[in-house]
C-alpha cells in the first residue's frame, strides 16, 4: 500500500517556485530596474488580495459555503491598521489638529474611545487578525449550529455585509464615512513616501502570502481538508457518519476570516486608502469571481484568479477606459463556459493536450496522477 494523494513535498516545490518568483524574483527585477516601483507596489496589492482569495477558496471552494461577508473581514483588517496609521501621523494633517482630519469636518475634536487602543501597533495588528476570526466564530456559531446553510447562509452574510457597508458609510461611525481612511504618512515608524518602505512592504506581503499558502495547504492536505470537501459534496452523509460538521465549518470560516483580515492588514499601507467601497456585498462577490475565474477548489486557482483579474482590471481600465467592463465581463463568461474549472482548468487541459502529443509518457502520467495507486 503506497501513500495516496498529493504528498507534501510536491506542494512544497510549487510553493517554493511561487515564492522564488514573487518574493525574490520581482524585487530583484525591481532592484535591477526592470520593474518599476509603481508595478512592484501594484503587485503588492494583488498579492494582498490573493491572501483574501485564499480564504475565500477555503470556505467556498473547498467547503462549498458561499460567504458574502469576506469583505467585512478584509475591511476589519484594513481599518485596524488604517486607524493605527492615522494615529501615527496625527497632527500632520491639513488642519494640524491632534485627531485625524476627517473628524474635524465631522466636528469631532477629541479622539473617540474606541480609537484609543489603536495607538498600539500590536493591538492594531492583533485586532486585524483576531477580530475577524472572532466575528466569524460568532456568526458561525449562530448560523451553523442553527443549520442555516446554502443560499440562506449566503443571503444572511450578504445582509450583514450590506448593513455593515451602510453603517460604515455614515460619518457618525467616526471611521471616515464614504471617504474611509486615507493620507497615511507612515507605518510602524517607516515613512510611506519612501520607496524603500513600499519595497519592504511588498516583500513582507509576498512572504506572508507564501506562509498563508502553506497554512492553507496544511489544512487542505490534512484529514480536515477531506472533511471540508465532503461537507461541500454531501454534508448530511458526513453528519450521519458522526462528524459534527458545524465545528468544521466554524473553523474554516474563522480561518478564512483571519486570512481576509491579514489581507486587509497588508493592503491598506500599500494602497494608502481604505474605504467602505472595499467592504460590502459587491466586493465580496468580486472575491468569488476571482476564485471562480482562477479555478475553484484549488488553492492555486484562487491565487491565479485574484492576481490575474486585478491585474487585468488595472490594465484594461487604462488601455480601454470605455470598453473594459465589456472585455472583462466577456472574459468571465468565456472562461466559465468553456473551462468550468477556471484558468487552472484551462492549464490542466493544455497539459492534457501536451500529454496526448507525447503518448509515450502518457501511461506514466496516469499512474503518477496518484488516484489509482493505493490498492492493497
Amino acid at each position, binding site marked *: 500500500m503506497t*501513500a495516496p494523494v498529493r504528498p507534501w513535498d510536491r506542494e512544497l516545490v510549487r510553493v517554493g517556485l511561487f515564492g522564488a518568483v514573487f518574493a525574490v524574483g520581482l524585487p530583484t527585477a525591481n532592484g535591477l530596474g526592470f520593474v518599476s516601483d509603481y508595478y512592484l507596489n501594484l503587485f503588492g496589492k494583488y498579492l494582498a488580495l490573493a491572501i483574501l482569495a485564499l480564504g475565500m477558496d477555503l470556505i467556498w471552494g473547498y467547503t462549498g459555503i458561499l460567504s458574502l461577508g469576506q469583505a467585512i473581514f478584509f475591511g476589519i483588517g484594513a481599518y485596524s491598521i488604517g486607524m493605527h496609521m492615522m494615529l501615527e501621523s496625527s497632527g500632520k494633517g491639513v488642519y494640524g489638529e491632534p485627531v485625524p482630519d476627517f473628524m474635524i469636518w465631522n466636528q469631532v475634536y477629541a479622539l473617540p474611545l474606541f480609537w484609543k487602543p489603536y495607538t498600539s501597533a500590536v493591538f492594531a495588528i492583533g485586532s486585524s487578525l483576531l477580530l475577524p476570526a472572532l466575528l466569524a466564530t460568532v456568526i458561525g456559531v449562530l448560523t451553523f449550529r442553527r443549520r442555516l446553510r446554502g443560499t440562506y447562509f449566503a443571503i444572511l452574510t450578504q445582509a450583514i455585509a450590506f448593513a455593515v457597508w451602510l453603517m460604515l458609510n455614515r460619518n457618525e461611525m467616526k471611521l471616515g464615512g464614504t471617504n474611509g481612511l486615507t493620507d497615511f504618512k507612515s507605518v510602524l515608524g517607516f515613512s510611506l513616501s519612501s520607496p524603500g518602505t513600499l519595497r519592504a512592504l511588498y516583500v513582507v506581503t509576498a512572504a506572508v502570502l507564501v506562509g498563508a499558502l502553506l497554512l492553507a495547504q496544511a*489544512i487542505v492536505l490534512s*484529514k480536515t*481538508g477531506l*472533511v471540508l470537501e465532503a461537507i461541500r459534496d454531501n454534508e448530511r452523509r458526513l453528519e*450521519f457518519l458522526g462528524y459534527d460538521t458545524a465545528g468544521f465549518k466554524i473553523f474554516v470560516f474563522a480561518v478564512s476570516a483571519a486570512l481576509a483580515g491579514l489581507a486587509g492588514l497588508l493592503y491598506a499601507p500599500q494602497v494608502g486608502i481604505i474605504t467602505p467601497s472595499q467592504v460590502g456585498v459587491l466586493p465580496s462577490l468580486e472575491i468569488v469571481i476571482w476564485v471562480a475565474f482562477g479555478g475553484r477548489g484549488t488553492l492555486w486557482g484562487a491565487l491565479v484568479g485574484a492576481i490575474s483579474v486585478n491585474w487585468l482590471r488595472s490594465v484594461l481600465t487604462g488601455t480601454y477606459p470605455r470598453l473594459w467592463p465589456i472585455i472583462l465581463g466577456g472574459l468571465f463568461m468565456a472562461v466559465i463556459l468553456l473551462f468550468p474549472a477556471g484558468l487552472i482548468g484551462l492549464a490542466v487541459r493544455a497539459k492534457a493536450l501536451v500529454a496526448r502529443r507525447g503518448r509515450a509518457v502518457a501511461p506514466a502520467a496516469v499512474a503518477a496522477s496518484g488516484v489509482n495507486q*493505493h490498492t492493497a
Partner: protein
Amino acid sequence: MDTLLYVENLTVSFEGFLALRNLNLIVERTERVRLLIGPNGAGKTTLFDVLTGHVAPSAGRVLFRDTVNLAAMSPHAIANVGVIRKFQTPSVFPGHTVFENMLLAAGRKRFVSTLAAWRAFTSHEAIVATLAQMGLAGRAGDLAGTLSHGEKQWLEIAMLLVDDPTLLLLDEPAAGMTRPEKERTIALIEGIVARSSSCVMLIEHDMEFVRRVARQGHRVTVLHEGTVLSEGSLDRVQADERVIEAYLGRGKVRGAA
C-alpha cells in the same frame, strides 16, 4: 431490561400529518437482524430518521441500550454512539476516491484529531480489510462517482462497517440492484452477521430479498400507517389477517384510482 433499542409511543407529525403514531418497538441485544416491512408511507424511513436524529419526534421515547436517549441527540452524536445509517439512495462522496470515502468513515471524527491526521496515513488496515470484505478492493483509487449503482451501495455499507457500529440501519440496500447484485448483497449481509457483532436493522420492499434474509428466523416487523401492525417470524406475519388486508387494501385503493 436489556434491550438494544427501546421505542415507546413514538409519534411524528409533519404539519398535522402523522407519519408515526404511538409506535412501540423493542429490539433485544441478542438480535442480529431485524427486518422492517410495510407498504409505502408506512413510516419506515421516518422511523430511521428519528433513530438517527434527523427528525424530532412530537412525542414518545427512544432509548438505545436502555440509557441513551436518541431523541435528544444530534445526528453526529448518534453516529458516534454506534447507531449508523445507510440511505435509501446511495449516499457517498462522489468527488472523493473510494479510499478517501473510507478514510472519512474511519477513525475519530473529532475536529482536532482530523486536523492532526494527514489524508494519507490513517487506519489503513481496517479500511483495506473492509474494502476486501465488500469486494471493492480493486476500486480503491477510483472516484466514488464512477462506481456503478450497486458498487456505491456496497461502498456505503463498507463505510458504515469500518468502525464496527453497534446498530446498523440499512434503508433498502438492494433497491435498484440487478439480481446477481442482490444475491451478493444478501451474502454480504450474511457475512456481516457472521463476522461482526453489529445488529442490522433492515428496511426492504423486495419480498424475495426479505424472505432470503429472514430465513435464519430473524424477526420481522410490519409497519402500517405509522404504527406496528404485526411482529414475529416471517411466516407468522405473512399469515396475519391485518397484514394481508393492509397490503390488499392499498391495492384496492390503487385499483380504484
